[in-house]
């Protein structure tokens, strides 16, 4: 018997106003074997979360179809170990002890899943509800925390308040709280979006180990191709509620065209292989090793374009000896030095907690109480008058657009900052329309931002900052938690802006992005800068990367291996560069080609 069987599942959310909602899942069928690691991918809005809810009985127990119209909302079957998911959830009470069939669900936002007020009770909560004896709870809680890498907090776990944990730590805590329940099936809906790449792999590796040791069946919704390629046995791809691909990971992932059509993340190597015609055992290579094999006998053209030289550019931001402490006294930044030049496309990278976001906040004037010297456009930021005018010079786009949007009309939203800056009504009107046209939201000018889609909200956030015509734009994590299409969307927007003269600074985890867009990087570690300079030089220095705790993108790792095998080959750092080197196209051309596909 398969662990999970889904047969022709149709579901639509009940509607309370107006007509019926469209179906969110349309005839989904698949099976998950026992102890399998099963991946689920798809663009935003495809129905992945809905599917997770259906697998865990949330649908139809929490989201109930209206009485009398059940068959119009829920069709088909979902069985977990032979029982329908709804039944399983109801029988939780009767199922006691470690042998019971149990299905766990981990959701995306760590804040909403952390239900108790300290770490210890959060991990123990499920067990308390199950009625386990206290010493058993204690034992399992300790174990669970160890597994997810929070073991050192065990001693103080009852004193750690959720506000003292980062998003990533909260996600680990959520995982721990389910692991302690010894589920048979664990469904995880993008549970690691807040973690940096290393952290992500660590957590997934830990979960995979548990799967092997404790006969756990895993269903993981994830964007990152490397994670699924490495760990998932089979993968299901959804789009608009329908299954568009289903099968062994290798088969699904080597269909790069499918990925491009539906806006899914394919690995660097697969994208290179697809555009440059590399073949490994009849298909596109998926890992660095496979690509190396596929490269045997392929010549690399020298890169035609030289890197533009930075000499003679004006300094727009200068940070010297920056120190910053949080309100509770912990030191967030220690003697940070960095320089940003006009027209830069700069990426600030580092592990979680390295202080990269804090630095940008100090630069933009959001955190005014710092020690050290920070000048923007030559003016000292600690001067109150300068600080007041900063929003007009340095624009800041936050990671979560919901935090930035507060007006009831798109027009007013963009106009808000402009009005604060004291511009006249005509000027405001002009700039608002300009900005909205730029991001492609002109048609939504009178809509309520609350009802815009995720991608549209993000574009609105960018538009409202851009309308203020800042010389420098800082964007915090532009692609975290986004699907491929939305990522490409926002990055090409930034590239366009940079092309027109705006200096762009991004804070990001995504090394692929850094390699493709950022010409310079600033690397931070534990509150200090450990490197500042051209991206290429950074990625070429393996020892430096390791010291900084940064995992290079696949394209770079491929180069590292290739240079080892064929010394003297040029060091390539991004997918467009690889494609150009293999096909003879110009780098810019290769990059544009991929962007056009994304927009399609």
């Amino acid at each position, binding site marked *: 018997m398969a662990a999970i069987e889904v047969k022709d599942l149709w579901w639509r959310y009940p509607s309370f106003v107006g007509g019926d909602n469209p179906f969110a899942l349309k005839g989904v069928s698949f099976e998950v074997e026992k102890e399998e690691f099963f991946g689920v991918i798809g663009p935003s809005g495809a129905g992945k979360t809905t599917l997770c809810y259906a697998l865990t009985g949330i649908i139809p127990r929490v989201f109930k179809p209206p009485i009398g119209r059940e068959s119009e909302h829920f069709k088909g079957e979902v069985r977990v170990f032979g029982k329908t998911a709804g039944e399983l959830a109801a029988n939780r009470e009767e199922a006691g002890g470690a042998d019971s069939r149990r299905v766990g669900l981990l959701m995306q936002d760590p804040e909403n899943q952390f239900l108790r007020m300290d770490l210890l009770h959060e991990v123990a909560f499920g067990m308390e509800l199950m009625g386990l004896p206290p010493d058993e709870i204690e034992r399992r809680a300790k174990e669970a925390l160890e597994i997810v890498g929070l073991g050192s907090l065990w001693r103080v776990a009852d004193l750690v308040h959720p506000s003292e*944990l*980062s998003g990533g730590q909260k996600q680990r805590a959520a995982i721990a709280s389910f692991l302690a329940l010894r589920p048979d099936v664990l469904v995880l809906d993008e549970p690691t979006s807040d973690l940096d790449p290393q952290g992500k792999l660590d957590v997934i590796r830990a979960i995979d180990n548990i799967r092997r040791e404790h006969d756990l069946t895993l269903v993981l919704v994830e964007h990152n191709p490397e994670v699924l390629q490495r760990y998932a046995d089979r993968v299901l791809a959804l789009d608009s509620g329908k299954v568009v691909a289903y099968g062994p990971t290798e088969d699904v992932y080597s269909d790069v065209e499918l990925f491009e059509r539906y806006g899914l993340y394919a690995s660097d190597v697969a994208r290179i292989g697809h555009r440059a015609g590399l073949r490994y055992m009849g298909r596109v290579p998926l890992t660095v090793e496979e690509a190396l094999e596929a490269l045997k006998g392929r010549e690399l053209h020298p890169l035609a374009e030289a890197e533009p030289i930075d000499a003679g550019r004006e300094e727009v931001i200068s940070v010297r000896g920056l120190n910053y402490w949080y309100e509770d006294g912990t030191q*967030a930044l220690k003697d940070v030095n960095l320089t940003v030049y006009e027209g830069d496309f700069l990426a600030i990278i580092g592990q979680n907690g390295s202080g990269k976001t804090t630095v940008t906040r100090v630069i933009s*004037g*959001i955190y005014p109480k710092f020690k050290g010297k920070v000048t923007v456009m030559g003016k000292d930021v600690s001067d109150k008058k300068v600080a007041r005018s900063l929003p007009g010079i340095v624009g800041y786009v936050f990671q979560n657009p919901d935090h930035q949007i507060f007006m*009831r009309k798109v027009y007013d939203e963009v106009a808000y900052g402009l009005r*604060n800056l004291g511009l006249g009504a005509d000027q405001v009107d002009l700039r608002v329309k300009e900005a909205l046209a730029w991001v492609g939201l002109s048609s939504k000018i009178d809509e309520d931002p609350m009802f815009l889609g995720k991608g549209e909200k993000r574009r609105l956030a960018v538009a409202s900052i851009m309308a203020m015509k800042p010389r420098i734009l800082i964007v915090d994590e532009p692609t975290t938690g986004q699907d491929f299409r939305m990522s490409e969307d926002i990055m090409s927007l930034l590239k366009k802006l940079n092309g027109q003269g705006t200096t762009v600074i991004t804070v990001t985890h995504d090394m692929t992005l850094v390699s493709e867009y950022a010409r310079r990087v600033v690397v931070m570690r534990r509150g200090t800068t450990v490197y500042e300079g051209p991206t290429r030089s950074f990625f070429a220095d393996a020892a430096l990367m390791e010291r900084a705790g940064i995992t290079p993108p696949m394209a770079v790792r491929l180069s590292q291996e290739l240079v080892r095998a064929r010394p003297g080959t040029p060091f390539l750092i991004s997918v467009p560069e690889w494609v150009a080197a293999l096909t003879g196209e110009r780098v810019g051309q290769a990059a544009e080609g991929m962007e056009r596909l994304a927009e399609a």
Partner: protein
Amino acid sequence: MSRESSGRSGQEEGKGKGKGKGKEEEEEEERASKKYVRTFIYSMRVGTPVEKLHAITKIAMILFFSVIAIYMFDIPFSRGGPDLLGLILLLSIVLILLAVARTAKYLVSSYLIMALPVLIGEFLWWLVFNQGLAGPRIPLYVWPGYFPIGVSTGLAVLAFALVYLRSGRLFSSALLAALLWFACVVPAPLDGPPFTFYRIPASPAVIIQVPQEAVDLALAKALGYGVLIYAAFLFLLTTRDAEIVGALLQLKVKFKQAFFAALMFRNLNTILLDYDNVRVAQRARAAAAGRNPLKRVIDLGYMSVPLIASMIKRSTEMGVALHARGFETAGTVTQYRETRSFTYVDAVIISLLLFFLVYVVIMGNSFTSLAARWGIWPR
């Protein structure tokens, strides 16, 4: 109030490499390094005597202190008037407890220091609105009719210099100095403050007189409010939300009902986090809030709708999380380390409080009258 998430509790993401220290030592360090624990507002130092008290004791303290204080300042003049000495005693106890709980750092560095102007405001308010009381009048403020140049001026200039050098704020230093100067002149007899070298004549002398009883009353109210405010802070600064829930459980409230309170506190936290994030985002949009209260209120108006919308959406996911954890189908719930035991110290304190309450409220004793009888208290 909140800080950027940064893994502050000492754990690095994704680092499993050996540190060269034993596991035990690491844990000891961790425990030791967690000196502060998050309470209702801000943090408190772990291990202070006040922190160790049970939540019920702390609640009892506020309740009892409040009742006693209210009683004390409500004693009508026909029965001897408000119990000033008693209030002073009570306030001192509360402040000492606050000190013992090592909360001084927070009290000084935060908005709560505004309690002082509020108390002064209350004093003046009660004073102004009670001019009709009979009885002897005393001078509240004496304006001698000239500007004295002497020690008082010297002090004022010194204060100005010190504050200005320290803070760099011209206006505030000047204001402070001026206030100090006037304060020196207040308790002066009609011929001016002592050690005056020179007098710059200004106007005829003015004596503002108020009924003695009004002063007593206003002082009593101000002290009483002080007790109410600081007792509440004592609770808020030294109690963790989890303790309240624990206390409820000990009072035999059903788990799901006690948990409702816990969930509410958890949400409070989340909302404040969201509010902070939105405020930070607003700052980036040139919304210079500053101290202008009207602007802050208007901005809050704009922010509130999306804030509430996001909280409502969050609550849906929270409901899912609860369900996934087995909340709906839970039978008997184990209580794992939810409660704190009631020690004899708690019992002693509650008994003392009860005694105090009975002594003052039920038996109607007034410390002021007692002291007056023994000749310690003037009048």
